């Protein structure tokens, strides 16, 4: 077993309506120091695999195909845990 995190973020330059709204609300809630907020996805994936290199390849393929939309999003894959069982 192996656990990976995938971070999907909006590309630079793509407007983030949700991030903007959150920033506005934070300002209203008196968090005056907030400069910018961007909201992306945090995807946790558990795989039946112990081969890290192969897993990374697979996870990148998943992200390219489905998890991220390359027109607007970037992603980053990270293996966080490998369980020998």
């Amino acid at each position, binding site marked *: 077993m192996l656990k990976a995190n995938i971070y999907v973020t909006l590309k630079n330059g*793509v*407007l*983030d*309506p*949700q991030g903007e*709204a959150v920033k506005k609300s934070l300002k209203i809630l008196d968090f005056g120091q907030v400069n910018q907020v961007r909201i992306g996805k945090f995807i946790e994936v558990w795989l039946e695999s112990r081969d890290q290199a192969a897993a990374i390849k697979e996870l990148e393929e998943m992200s390219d*195909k*489905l*998890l991220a*939309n390359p*027109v*607007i999003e970037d992603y980053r894959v990270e293996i966080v845990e490998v369980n020998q069982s």
Partner: protein
Amino acid sequence: MRFGVVVFPGSNCDRDCYHVIKEVMEEPVEYIWHKEKSLSGFDALILPGGFSYGDYLRTGAIARFSPIMPAVMDFAQAGGLVLGICNGFQILLEAGLLPGAMLRNSSLKFICQPVFLKIQRNDTPFSNKFKSMQVVKIPIAHGEGNYYCDPRTLQEMKDNGQILFTYCSADGEETMEYNPNGSLANIAGIMNGKGNVLGMMPHPERYSEDILGGRDGFNIFASMINWLKGVG
């Protein structure tokens, strides 16, 4: 002439489109289950609105991998007419049949209300029943209709005349004030380069009968039929 309405799990305007083609336009129409792998004998396809696969992850992202989609792409490639409405538009974007992507509405809220659209050209399979620059009224109902593409793609679409519908005022002013969702360049509907695939956020099937409040949507289907008859 035969229309096909593709049904994905979670489609919910499939019956509405079917009704309009069959009962209002009085043309033959069939449902196409998303698990089908081939298409034959159709002249036009409609990808209806709804929440395919719950629109989980991103709108249209999962439906784009339905077994029927390769056949839809072949059909489009071969020049068949494809109309994606709302969720159908989002699926076409995810599938790459149209350029760009959808973001959440700038208000972050679902919006259901009639809007005004400007018909940018009337020499297309989808708009030949309108006057050029005509202003029409058709309802929208979506949470993610905030169209985005990179500047180069936008320029290309402009140069090719791919932008078919834009949000505007009753008098045709295309300003931000009349843009319901933050969409780039007030875009409400775009075509592919060849002009045989249209994606639009507004729902023409909802304004195809007077009793429902308007009939401007009728002319989109009528244009398709007109064009198919002319060509065929």
